[in-house]
């Protein structure tokens, strides 16, 4: 699956049907030559980070107008996820009250980073060419998704009309079937604070058609009540 397409911004519900929120971000833990997705992040703090400087300003101003949770978020570990379905994350029962879970801890460089920070990093190939991350391809959760690689494109923002998500089955209306390539995590990539270093020239990277499958999570059996 692709994290941006299949997890980020999707609805979080529990088995009792309570809405918990939306997936605002996910942590990506880095290990020797591998990475896993965990845990899921939801909350105002994670949302405002996505707005960059504007979000930072709102976060600073919010306490002055009585809103004291602007820099906080909640985290959900994959052990608490009952199922990942198309367009929703289903939690175990009674997890809609997540009080007491870790809130808003900051990234540890080289050990973990947030998805939204990862896809903002430029990717540089050996020739110095600057490309960008379109999405992160992973396995389906078992119990947590393992990162397989990055989908990269020369001008991801322009190609996707500035959209976060894309339809990898089509090129029309923001789709990116062509011109997007696959950078395997096992290709010895290096993640630095300011860039991702790709050891292979962009043009030598395989096209998406040669990448591991991006089968999305299954559809829910029944439509949910709102």
């Amino acid at each position: 699956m692709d994290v941006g397409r299949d997890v980020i911004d999707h609805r979080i519900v529990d088995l009792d049907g309570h809405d918990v929120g939306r997936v605002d971000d996910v942590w990506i833990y880095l290990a020797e030559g591998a990475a896993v997705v965990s845990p899921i992040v939801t909350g105002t703090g994670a949302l405002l980070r996505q707005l960059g400087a504007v979000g930072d300003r709102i976060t600073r101003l919010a306490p002055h107008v009585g809103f004291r949770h602007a820099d906080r978020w909640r985290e959900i570990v994959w052990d608490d996820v009952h199922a990942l379905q198309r367009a929703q994350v289903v939690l175990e029962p009674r997890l809609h009250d997540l009080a007491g879970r870790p809130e808003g801890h900051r990234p540890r460089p080289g050990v973990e980073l947030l998805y939204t920070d990862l896809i903002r990093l430029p990717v540089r190939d050996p020739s110095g060419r600057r490309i960008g991350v379109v999405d992160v391809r992973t396995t389906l959760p078992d119990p947590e998704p393992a990162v397989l690689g990055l989908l990269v494109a020369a001008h991801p923002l322009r190609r996707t009309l500035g959209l976060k998500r894309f339809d990898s089955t089509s090129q029309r209306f923001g789709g990116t079937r062509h011109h997007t390539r696959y950078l395997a995590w096992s290709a010895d990539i290096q993640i630095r604070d300011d860039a991702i270093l790709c050891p292979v020239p962009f043009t030598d990277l395989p096209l998406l058609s040669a990448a591991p499958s991006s089968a999305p999570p299954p559809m829910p059996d029944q439509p949910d009540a709102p």
Partner: protein
Amino acid sequence: MRKLAAVALGVVTAIGGFVDIGELVTLPAAGGTYRFALLWVLALSVIGAMVYAEMAGRIELASQRAVFEVLRERLGFKLGVVPLLAVIALNVLTLSAEIAGLAFVLQLVVDISYLWLLIPIALGVLMFQWFGSWTLLEDVPSFLGLPLLVIPAALVFGGIGVDWGDAAHQVIAPSLPTGDHLLYWTAALSIVGSVMSPYEWYFYSSGGREEGWTLQDLMVNRCTVILGWSLGSVLAFGLMIGSAVFFYPLSISPAHLSQTGLIAIAAFGKVGLTLFLLGAFGCVLGASIEVSQSAGQALSQFFGWSWGASRPVKDVPKFTATYTLAIVAAVIILYTGLDPIKITVISMIFAVMALPFTFLPMLLVANDRTYMGDHRNGVFGNAVGVFFLAVLVIGAVAALPLVVITGGGG
């Protein structure tokens, strides 16, 4: 049989719910000022509204998500927040106009200044939503709005001489006025904004979630949109044609509901007036509920809060708080002393400015196979969708200068 009943109910509610205060203000004014010269804009807007309503319903059916849920997923927070803010701002402004419209209708009945009626009406609209179920909210105002059919009935059976041939000709080959071009185009934009209000199809799409539509209901969606919107547009055409026949020869541009009601009185006397007022009240009440619900639905869907008109208020606190605050904000705007008619016209034009921000994401989602599967837009759907998007982008770019130059449409 169940599908037939669903289509029948959907069509009836679409007819009764087609007209809101925007149409009640802008269409008679356009008819009285430009006779049939803006009928083509109305026809075009109705087709555009149908295209996007069908798309919104199909997105809901294929993805099992309401439009703003999909927008958040597909566009992300950063980009998705743009249509969200546009829709919320537009809804509050439109809600002001709708609540003022309800007050105007009641003022005609009880002869008390509309300013005294704003708070009781706002409370009534609020209570209706707090304690009403989805079915009640959708069906009661729509059925109440049906008597507004007295206007087209007056044109057909009321002995008012209508040159139907000329009206039909003007739809296909309009003769533009020789002067006042800026006012003409401003009026055209306000018609587009009143007929293509985004809240209508967001509410419609959310209704699919409320009623648990599935892919089996694709045909119900299509029939409801095509039949309901087409028949509903009879009301809209009736308002403009009636005004053109009745007021244009007298050089009167009806600016108040009481003037528009004269068409019904001329044909059917007091019965006509009663039906007109009842229909106008039902239509505007329905629109008030739809607009406020739509604000709550949009925010709740975007942020993942629980929502639903049929769920107890305590189970959907943020959803309830959102539409309650929208109503409070709308009333505050009205008490600032702004002219409600001006608010209505400006909200219609603001709607045109906001429409591309809401249409483009829908078009993107409707083309995404990940969400739509085999039900994504075909070539024809995309051609029509892109055509209307282009028209709306041009309208959106022109809207602000036109409003400034003409002082809000004169």
